[in-house]
């Protein structure tokens, strides 16, 4: 008689096999590349890789706190795009109701933008 619990656990067995395989594959690749590659250490090779430019200064640097407001505004309009694109592709299907609904949505976002604008968030200075 099949025990339902062991059946349940057996389906996890394949997950375990895959995890084990990934470790084996990783180790194998590392060993092969270690055996094949030439080994010539130089000081320049130990510098952090920064897309080809020599790194300058400390890693602790300040960034403008303003950027967080831009990030917030970006999120608002990013979400807007997420909703508007699917709506626009099926505009006819949603009919007048969908049109009004989308205008209500955009209006609320615009009012948020008005608030941000009057707060002076959009000024660069």
């Amino acid at each position, binding site marked *: 008689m099949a025990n339902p619990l062991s059946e349940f656990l057996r389906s996890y067995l394949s997950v375990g096999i895959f995890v084990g395989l990934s470790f084996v594959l990783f180790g194998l690749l590392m060993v092969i590349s270690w055996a094949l590659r030439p080994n010539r250490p130089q000081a320049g090779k130990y510098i952090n890789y920064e897309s080809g430019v020599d790194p300058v200064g400390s890693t602790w640097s300040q960034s403008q706190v303003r950027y967080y407001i831009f990030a917030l505004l970006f999120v608002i309009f990013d979400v807007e795009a997420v909703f508007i694109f699917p709506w626009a592709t*099926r505009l006819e299907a949603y009919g007048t109701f969908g049109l009004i609904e989308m205008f209500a949505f955009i209006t609320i976002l615009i009012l948020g933008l008005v*608030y941000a604008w009057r707060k002076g968030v959009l000024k660069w200075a």
Partner: protein
Amino acid sequence: MLSVILQDTPIPISANPVIETPEIVWSSLAPHLILILGGILLLTLVSLLRGKAPSWFHAAWTVVVAGAALGSLWPLWSRVQEDGPQTLIAGAVGLDGFSLFVTGIICVSVILSALLLEGYLRRENLVGPEWYVLMLLSASGGVIMASANDLIVLFIGLEILSVAAYVLASMHSRRISSSEAGLKYLILGAFSSAFLLYGIAMTYGATGSTNLVRIQQFLVDTVLIKNGMLLAGFAFMIVGLGFKVAAVPFHFWAPDVYQGSPTPISGYMASGIKAAGFAGFIRVFVVTFGGTYAQQWRPMVYALAVLSLLVGAYMALIQTNVKRMLAYSSIAHAGFILIGVTVATDKGTSAALFYLLVYAFMVTGSFGVVGIIGREGDGKHSLDDYQGLGKTRPGLALIFAVFLLAQAGVPFTGGFLSKFYVINAAVAEEQYVLAVIAMVSAVIAAYLYLRIIVSMYFAGADDHGVSPEMANPPAKKVPAGAAIALGIAVFATLWLGIVPDTVTSVANEAVARLVAFQG
């Protein structure tokens, strides 16, 4: 396998050109719409006027908007009485006595908190519309939660409610403890929301719907042979909702958040947000799972109620910060309301509703007094700061004493009757142990409230070497808005204790019903 799926399902571009849109009874959504539009309009108006609005304008607007939402409940109430509960927006939102009653509690809490906030913000030099906008939007989320007929709508309401509350908790920008409160509330709140959502997903997996009516119908029609997933869904949803109502053992955020938040906001959290959380609790568990699965979830809620009653009352005793005391006592009060939930009868529900209403008045009033005594910086909340208050500010001390005695459950206050109705509902279901535990908790908590009163009236200069005049210098006048709010709260607390019939008869008819959508 994949190729088969791809071949067999062409994308139906013109198969169904018009998507059916639900019919919406806009007039029945009046409280929701008034609160949301009121909040958005306030933000737009004030940002367009840019500082030309007087400082009292925001609070006055908020009171008018919440008052209008409260007023819109009367015609809706008579509509429910005549035509019975209805379902709106394709069965996603329901209109019944229960949702209207909870909406009323939330509106009352917004009005009182807005009045208290006005003077507080002027004192702290933080005047701005954002507080009131966030409070109105948060309240609209609570109203959505109270009228949700669908688990997803419930979750959306909860998020609207909570996200605004996270910001409100951290709005006192100069107090570091306020930012701490906001951050703690955000992280733990997000965690608990995830639990709730996971519970909703499991319930959906077990029953095939997120609509409460269909879930209820499914459970009546079908006998689940393996109900493990449904029970796991119960457990997760109880964790999520238990967090929002601050029930032990999901209460750890409450003392820190209530203590750190701006004091009038703590009052709003303890009244409005708690009411919305309990609305969700009752709607999901008592109404939807009340019949067929009551035996499965009731022990869990029973344990929450007992733990909240005892741990809340005991932990409140050993605090020296009055705001923290009130936070722990609000956990004990949540335990009392959970008794009304766990008996899972209409009697229990109406007792819980009455309790929530009385508690809204008591707790916003208490936090209002604490906010005034906290003085500039909102930091004087130690028990020592209340020494000699009876001499230096007799009026304020008397009002605070009324609120504390009411919370302790002294007769002729609403606090006594609310406890009485809840225990009565437990006794009617023969839950004698629960009733005894509730009474023990009330006795323990009474000592706590008396401790504050003793400190106000009887502690003299000898105790700590601080003269009453030094601890509480004769202070400025209480701001007008706060005076009105405290007056209303005291009046309501006493009135509900002496002539409760008008409200209890309404609470008895405010039963929650699910109505199937006739599509």
